[in-house]
């Protein structure tokens, strides 16, 4: 892999235009961008071991106290569990909605299809704030204002478009003759969906599902608006704490643990998806 990547960079489009000095500046720029992206995370990670109860950088002294004080962390842990539950359920709902909508959009022709398609994509572009406010208003009309169910619904609305997008991409590549073959071999439509359609849409479902999970897990705006006691996601809780009590080191410790969790999750996913991609490209590559 890397053997092939290096000569590609060397023969890049900038090659004839910039000399060694230019190349050094170019390198520095890339480094600066990396630092700019990573620095905030690094600051929080490093600050989380500070002895002081308030957040300082550089940290003064070293302690793991903020990571081990279970009484302090209890609320955060409950919020973390709630976040996981919401993200998992929102992912499941997004997958179900996304699969259905994507199949209808790729396979049916009806008037107003383009408009409907745009509507389904709108949560990606529209401000989440507007969505959250609107939902709050709407939910208060029907009596259920805050808590688990509203949060779950709102998250699903935000996450489903990503699933629709990725499943649509897979569905466009899916050969309808495959499903017709299965039908003619005697499989009923539900069986065809299970045996043929779903396995072949797996790449789209998988990447859409991952996006949905991460987006739900990370969401602050909507979760903040719809949070209720005992039904607050971790990002919402962190935001509340930071604005109410200021930046304390426990927050940094929680953020550090959250970062570690997300990294771990990405590793697992990378393993799963990486293997998946290898398997599918092995089949596709020999065509």
């Amino acid at each position, binding site marked *: 892999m890397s053997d092939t990547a290096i000569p590609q960079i060397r023969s890049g489009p900038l090659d004839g235009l910039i000399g060694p000095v230019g190349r050094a500046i170019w390198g520095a720029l890339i480094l600066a961008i990396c630092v700019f992206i990573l620095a905030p995370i690094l600051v929080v990670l490093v600050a989380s071991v500070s002895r002081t109860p308030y957040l300082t950088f550089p940290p003064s002294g070293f302690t793991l106290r903020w990571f081990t004080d279970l009484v302090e962390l209890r609320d955060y842990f409950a919020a973390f569990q709630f976040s996981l539950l919401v993200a998992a359920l929102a992912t499941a709902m997004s997958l179900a909605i996304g699969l259905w909508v994507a199949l209808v959009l790729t396979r049916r022709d009806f008037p107003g299809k383009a408009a409907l398609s745009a509507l389904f994509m709108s949560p990606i572009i529209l401000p989440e704030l507007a969505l959250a406010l609107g939902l709050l208003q709407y939910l208060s009309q029907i009596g259920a204002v805050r808590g688990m169910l509203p949060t779950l619904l709102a998250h699903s609305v935000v996450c489903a478009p990503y699933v629709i997008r990725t499943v649509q991409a897979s569905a466009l590549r899916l*050969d309808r*003759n*495959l499903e*017709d*073959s*299965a*039908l*003619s*071999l*005697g*499989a*009923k*439509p539900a*069986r065809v969906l299970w*045996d*043929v359609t779903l*396995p*072949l849409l797996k790449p789209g479902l998988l990447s859409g599902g991952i996006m949905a999970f991460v987006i739900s897990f990370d969401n602050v705006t909507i979760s903040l608006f719809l949070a209720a006691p005992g039904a607050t996601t971790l990002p919402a809780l962190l935001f509340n704490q930071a604005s109410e009590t200021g930046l304390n080191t426990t927050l940094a410790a929680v953020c550090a643990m959250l970062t570690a969790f997300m990294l771990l999750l990405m590793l697992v996913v990378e393993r799963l998806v990486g293997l998946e991609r290898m398997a599918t490209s*092995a*089949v*596709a*590559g*020999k*065509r």
Partner: protein
Amino acid sequence: MAADLLVQGVTRRFGEQLAVDRVDLAVGQGEFLGLLGPSGCGKTTLLRMIAGFLVPDSGRIICAGQDITTLPPFARNLGVVFQNYALFPHMTAAENVGYGLKVRGMARAEIVTRVKAALDRVNLAHAADRLPGQLSGGMQQRVALARAMVIEPRILLLDEPLSALDKNLREEMQVELRLLQQRVGITTVFVTHDQEEAMTLSDRIAVMQAGRVMQLGTPEEVYRRPISRFVATFLGTTNLLEGKAARVAGNTVTVALEGGAMVEASAPVPPTPGSPVQLAVRPESILLRSTPEGVPGTVEDVLFQGHRLIALFRTDSGQELRSYMPPSGWRPARGDRAWASWPAAEAGLIQA
């Protein structure tokens, strides 16, 4: 020959587009029927209606005495093979072949035996555990065929199954397909736009144009005695001669050609006497001779092609004819007087 598959007045539109237009077909038990026609003439649409993927706007489809017009495809028990084979890419060859048996709820052991037999029959026992992506085009083709036939379908429907193969393999597969079909004795409908392939394989050919069946007959009939200009030209090079139906006696028609020569031809549906007609005669049926017998004219050019001569001939009434002649025997030369003739059975009568 009992009709196994009946298509009666089947019509299908896509919006304004008339894809299949009042098609009638009767396919006999064990018969191999070729559906031949240019791209876009409605072959696939017709096949998809027989398979149940599309419902006709009007007309009926009857299989083994049962009206299946609106029966869903999974209840029809028909074997379908697509041009791109449509093998399930996530299943091995054996799993592909066994799928139809699995959804029927057959016992595992029984499936294994039948799949093995089916793969053996197409000489693919060694490839049972490979994924479709690891098989060559010809092998995929054979897996698709095995998959369609293992369920013991009532009818086999093939949509240009060989068109993705290169020429040599294609000719090999034509023979293999024909032998397999004969051995199993299964009623087969085969779609192709290749006239040679259709003639090689089919017991009868339905030639389609713009959604209509223009002629239905044995390969010999449609090739030697086309009843329309379209069929005559679609099936290969042909000569068209203008004339008039002078006398009609049963199916035998005496045609007065332009210039006065009288020739006989037979027509399934005789024309009314006096109406203008055309005769379609293949170049290989036209014999040029130096004795005054037939249509008089002048040889305009002679081209040598090794295995044959192509003689370009102009009748005295000004019609151009092309004749393929063996290089042995009398050789016309440019400017020679000659007379063109052909056996009556080699002329197709086309009514305007």
